């Protein structure tokens, strides 16, 4: 039962095969059993979950059920949840109970979803392996010696290990897609502005976007139906009419034109991953898609541009964590400067401090033009590359990550090696486009994902292609033995 998709669970709930309370309790039991080893959750909210489940069952009995009513889900700990710890993977916020709910949390709650708890993540979403979390790393359910990816590693591991039906995540440079790839699940990063950022703790405001981590494309569509849409509290949230993301799922792929970026299939990609992608390509061809090579000539500049823009924004976004109003404050500060220095020095981990320093440097007088401004120019070029490509193709397909999940501790000694983990995903954030990762095969007992990228607001098309692929493959149904 716990390995079912949201769509399947909804049917089971509707048929009264199971109640939400039973389902919720079953997930809580499995979490109690497996979470100590996986460390996917940092906070559990069993009482609240059972209360919500009971309310969901009552709503269903009253004939007021929506597709997500009574579905147990998890929230990445970057989303503010009222009266519940919201630590964002950091010592800085380890004591922070949010006074309000994020828009995403609010909407899922209103739709009747049940919150099981908050999932582990890289500190302030800065990391690609979940190893920067103050609460310890998450272990990949496929191989506990390996990382789940990051920064939404806790959410990805929880979905993969059936510790929830579905989870929320955020993606600033690949933080939904790369862990989805490493954990063998489906992850969607929507178009920038699709989902309100209200209540989502900011890392890099112009890149951050919330999205689903799920067991299928159909489930992702169900969550998108709830979380996407205009929100007056976020000025960057797009004011466009609501969309039914499930409406196009069944559309045949005939006539679909898919581009394969030469840059994504070059020397950096192992032959084994190439082979898996080739099989996926052939499958999609058999479903009616045609493929052609395309070029994204400035893609190689995306990592350096990103590592100027994201830290620059982060350096300001994280200034509010100063020990004055909430969060960590050092013991016995002797004066204001001491309070700032020690609270921030002790409250933030190394990777966060590194990025604050990089960002501060990039914005400093005399360096702004050489770094921040230049990075913004590159950002425009990268966006133009995509615009050009989408004149000839509907979607772009490539690897999500150069390889399968790596071992804990393998890459965390060298930041640059870690930064290159996101080489295929980062450009999508810089261009503000929707991208998703879905399971495409297995390599040495580990899942590997493929990435689909579309023009702005093409989520329905992406979900359609992913769903059709999943109807004809079973990679997404494979579950780890935990």
């Amino acid at each position, binding site marked *: 039962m716990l390995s079912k998709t949201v769509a399947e669970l909804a049917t089971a709930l509707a048929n009264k095969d199971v109640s939400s309370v039973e389902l919720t309790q079953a997930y809580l039991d499995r979490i109690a059993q497996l979470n100590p080893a996986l460390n996917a959750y940092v906070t559990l909210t069993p009482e609240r979950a059972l209360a919500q489940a009971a309310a969901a069952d009552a709503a269903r009995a009253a004939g007021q059920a929506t597709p997500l009513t009574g579905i147990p889900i998890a929230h990445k700990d970057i989303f503010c949840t009222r009266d519940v710890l919201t630590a*964002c993977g950091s010592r800085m916020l380890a004591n922070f109970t*949010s*006074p309000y709910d994020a828009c995403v949390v609010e909407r899922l709650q209103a739709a009747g979803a049940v919150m099981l708890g908050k999932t582990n993540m890289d500190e302030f979403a800065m990391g690609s392996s979940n190893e920067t979390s103050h609460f310890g790393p998450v272990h990949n359910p496929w191989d506990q010696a390996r990382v789940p990816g990051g920064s939404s590693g806790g959410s990805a591991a929880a979905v993969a290990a059936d510790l929830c039906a579905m989870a929320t995540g955020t993606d600033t440079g690949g933080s939904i897609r790369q862990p989805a790839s490493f954990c063998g699940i489906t992850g969607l990063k929507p178009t920038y502005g699709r989902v309100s950022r*209200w209540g989502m703790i*900011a890392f890099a*405001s112009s890149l951050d976007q919330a999205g689903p981590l799920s067991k299928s494309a159909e489930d992702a569509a169900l969550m998108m139906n709830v979380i996407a849409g205009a929100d007056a*509290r976020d000025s*960057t949230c797009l004011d466009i009419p609501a969309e039914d993301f499930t409406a196009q799922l069944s559309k045949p792929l005939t006539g679909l034109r898919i581009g394969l970026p030469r840059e994504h299939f070059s020397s950096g990609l192992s032959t084994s991953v190439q082979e898996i992608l080739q099989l996926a390509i052939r499958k999609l061809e058999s479903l009616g898609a045609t493929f052609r090579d395309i070029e994204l000539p400035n893609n190689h500049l995306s990592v350096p541009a990103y590592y100027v823009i994201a830290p620059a924004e982060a350096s300001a976004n994280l*200034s*509010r964590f100063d020990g004055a109003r909430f969060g960590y404050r050092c013991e016995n500060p002797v004066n204001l400067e001491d309070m700032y220095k020690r609270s921030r020095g002790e409250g933030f981990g190394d990777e966060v401090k590194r990025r604050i320093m990089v960002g501060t440097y990039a914005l400093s007088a005399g360096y702004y033009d050489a770094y921040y401004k230049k990075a913004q120019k590159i950002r425009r070029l990268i966006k133009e590359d995509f615009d050009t490509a989408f004149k000839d193709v509907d979607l772009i397909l490539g690897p999500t990550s150069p390889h399968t999940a790596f071992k804990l501790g393998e890459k965390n000694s060298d930041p640059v090696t870690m930064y290159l983990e996101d080489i295929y995903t980062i450009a999508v954030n810089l261009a503000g486009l929707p991208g998703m990762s879905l399971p495409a095969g297995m390599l040495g007992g580990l899942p590997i994902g493929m990435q689909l990228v579309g023009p702005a607001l093409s989520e329905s098309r992406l979900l359609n292609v992913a769903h059709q692929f999943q109807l004809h493959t079973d990679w997404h149904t494979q579950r780890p033995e935990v």
Partner: protein
Amino acid sequence: MTWETVIGLEVHVQLATNSKLFSGSSTHFGAAPNTQASLYDLAMPGTLPVMNEEVLRMAVSFGLAVDAEIGKRSVFDRKNYFYPDLPKGYQISQLDFPTVGRGSLKIQLEDGSDKIIAITRAHIEEDAGKSLHEDFQGMSGIDLNRAGTPLLEIVSDPDLRNAKEAVAYLKKLHSIILYLGISDGNMAQGSMRCDANVSMRKKGDTEFGTRTEIKNVNSFRFVEKAINYEVQRQIEILGDGGRIVQETRLYDSDKDETRSMRSKEVANDYRYFPEPDLLPVVIDDAFIDAIRATLPELPDARCQRFITQYGLSEYDADVLTSSRDMAEYFEAVVALCGDAKLSANWVSADLLGLLNKQDLNISASPISPQSLGTLISRIKDNTISGKIAKTVFEVLSDGETDVDAIIEARGLKQVTDTGAIEKLVDDVIAANPDQVAQYRGGKEAVFGFFVGQAMKLSKGKANPAQLNELLRKKLSA
């Protein structure tokens, strides 16, 4: 050596919106600490700014009032620095693309001539909170009620040449802001705050000298005193062959001096960059035109109209349009009594004298324009004389409001009955035979004596014109 003073002003005006620039919190002054601070004002993680459109309208209306270029696309930036009353660790401001670009305004110099002062720009930004250093046993308290209140920072070119010009500029700015109704302009409460950049150069030089910035000046008088102090200080240093240090200085009104603030404040690198949480504000001509259409008549235009429509002197028109309240008061009086000249005299001399003595703003005048207008009407219709009117005015200033009732109750009504006046004239002539002889002997000047006597006898109530006429007639008989 003759020195020339060069002054530029940065004026922060708190815009009179109901809610803050980027949150829905109230901006009302004087509430208990931190009762007007929302999640966003507290910089809670995950909160985001939403622009208050009223602020934009106010900024644009100011821009139009000073003939400025209006930024069709203004961009907010983050100005980064750490301070406890700045919860986010950055202030949202506008750096390269302010809402209001270059403009100008006209001030009148002491010799009566006009001078145009260029306005460099005016940008929208958020105010900080307040740090309270008393009453916390060695710690500091933070009040975030003010944090996020919308400010318009108006920057002038260094066109001002002495403290008096600076004050004239400030007063003009103050007047425009009140005319537009975009701020209460209350300097004591900090609704309008002024930083003055002051430098000296040798007369004839084209290069500017090193400047200092005087902060925290919160009245017209203090602006004048602070600048004068700073000018003297700089002249003394330069006269001794010294050099001015570019720094921020604080004006201490108790000691009437400026002193250096910690150099740390000056050395800040604010690391401005575009605010990613807000989209650029794009406005079109229709938006601007709609605001232009609702602009009130501004001081300069009103002054011109007072000269042409009411035939006032430039001086009177200037005084009477110096604030919107004053101009409105004057026009209300004129509308009632129909005599602009008399109204101008009564408002600018009697009423302003009274207000100055009681240190009151015209909006708090104890005498309403209705009362003053009625009073002037009673002079015009000969109910009372101008002299008696002063008595009535005094009664009004003590809080009574009904002019006619005052005249009635105190028996101040002018005597216009010819028979009664004739009797007065006869009595005076009979009582003063010597003076009658003198007058009739050709000593014209004695006439005034008779008028005085007759007036005294009537307790000031005799109609002066009738009295004069009858006196002349009887004395010449």
